[in-house]
């Protein structure tokens, strides 16, 4: 399997990355180099094997699947602290380019 330049630009769009043309070419070369070592994995017979998404999924004895905390507000209002590293803020709101006409 080998990715072509169109694949790279499609994936870059999905990943929200603007790649310059020479960067795309280098990326393609490197990613194809990587997929060469992935081929051995595709040949493995995994019929009937349950995928392991997480070590906690039954791997550690007695531990159940991922848990959720109660759905209650537990955090105090920290708007200012949370926005101190935002690139653009006005009156407590995050600013982005206009999305609705």
């Amino acid at each position, binding site marked *: 399997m080998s990715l072509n330049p169109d694949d790279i630009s499609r994936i870059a769009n999905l990943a929200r990355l603007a790649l310059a043309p020479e960067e795309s070419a280098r990326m393609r070369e490197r*990613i194809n180099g990587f997929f060469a070592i992935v081929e*051995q994995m595709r040949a493995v017979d995994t019929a009937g094997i*349950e995928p392991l998404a997480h070590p906690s999924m039954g791997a550690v004895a007695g531990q159940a699947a991922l848990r959720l905390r109660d759905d209650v507000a537990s955090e105090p209002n920290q708007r200012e602290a949370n926005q101190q590293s935002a690139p653009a803020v006005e009156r407590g709101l995050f600013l982005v380019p206009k*999305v609705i006409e």
Partner: protein
Amino acid sequence: MSELHQLSLTDLAQQLRGKKISATETAQHFLGRMRAHQDLAAFLAVDEEATLAQARAADAALAAGGAGPLAGVPIAHKDIFVTKDFPSTAGSKMLAGYRSPFDATVVRRLAEAGTVTLGKLSCDEFAMGSANESVAVPAVGHGAPAPVRNPWDRSRTPGGSSGGSAAAVAARLAPAASGTDTGGSIRQPAAFCGITGIKPTYGRASRYGMIAYASSLDQAGPMARSAQDCALLLSALCGPDLDRDSTSLDVPAEDFSRSLNDRLDGLRIGIPKEFFGAGLADDVRTAIDAALKEYEKLGARLVEISLPRTELAIPVYYIIAPAEASSNLSRFDGVKFGHRAGQYGDLLDMYKRTRAEGFGDEVKRRIMVGTYVLSHGYYDAYYLQAQKIRRMIADDFQQAFKNCDVVAGPVAPTVAWQLGDKAEDPVAAYLADIYTLSASLAGLPGMSVPCGFGANDMPVGLQLIGNYLQEGKLLNVAHRLQQATDFHLRTPEGY
């Protein structure tokens, strides 16, 4: 009394409790060493005022009584943990100058035990790397981003991604450091720098406030000079964090120092034959063999085992980790925090330019691979297939642990390589992770213990892997070796 920076963390903690030295003078001593050795590029942020304020608070607690077990002990944190008192960058331009409104749970727990933070340590950008070369923000005292240097030979890599942590401890710039391990990022740099590091069972240490790379693999752990020191730190930093981390194990914190001195008579050490194949360098093999002989003298028995999917762990890891990374790093969009491109058109254009400018090459590559293997039409063939083999790898370990108590082998196929050697060949760097990836995929605890020196007098690390929640056993096995050898006490020349 020997010099402060030559004391073990255990001794230092005792001297502080006995008020033979103050936390303030201890902090000043290590800050001075950090300044004197800035050429290692180990630190990304220091703030002497913040450190000394913490030290004065520790002195006050020590004077008042009831101080924590690590009161006044200086520690530096990998810059992947968010901290209130210091910037948190994950080594990325994306987060240059970022200030977190809270402390990571691991940082908070260690602070509650009394530690004083010396600063933040360099790492590969978002913990993606094995050489600490892909750091994108300047180190303290440097005008531009700089790779961390190995104190044993400054032309060589300290390993990665916790390279700053390993270099700082090896050069005695800190008695201990925090690290994180996703595919070997505690164990490999510990091995390359001749220090001791342990990655606990997945879920033992809270991931809350650890800047996420691959959430089903990321795990925090201590890096220090000895197993004894690591045991003290691990006891402080582990424990349930059930409301903050949905993968935190509901297992009470333990005193990992308790069983350090247990005898090893009858211990069965599993030797995976796949860890001793053609790729293993002779100098590393010689040092590992010597350590295994030492264990036989200590009463342990070597048992050959098989981990047949060792080589497969490389593609499996480098599919799963980038898949999770591509999802985790989607939060960096130039809206709520971090870098935003200077010029852009609409919202989509802002995202794309922001991310193109903010991320380095290796991070972009992993995001691309991850996006691809999760995309429609490829998910089953790559991502799901990798997760199935991940299950087989975890099962292989359970099979092996029927015949042994711990697994031992090399951490890495070679000693630390020259800076730049694998920088242009990412796949070569991935292949060098071969011995650490399996334990990460299975979520098992693993550690690196200094066990000798190889070519060019570079340190070699012995890897020990235990079954789930067997950190106490691992530390015991490591400690007994350190009672019989002195590799962990050696200091690189000039430090």
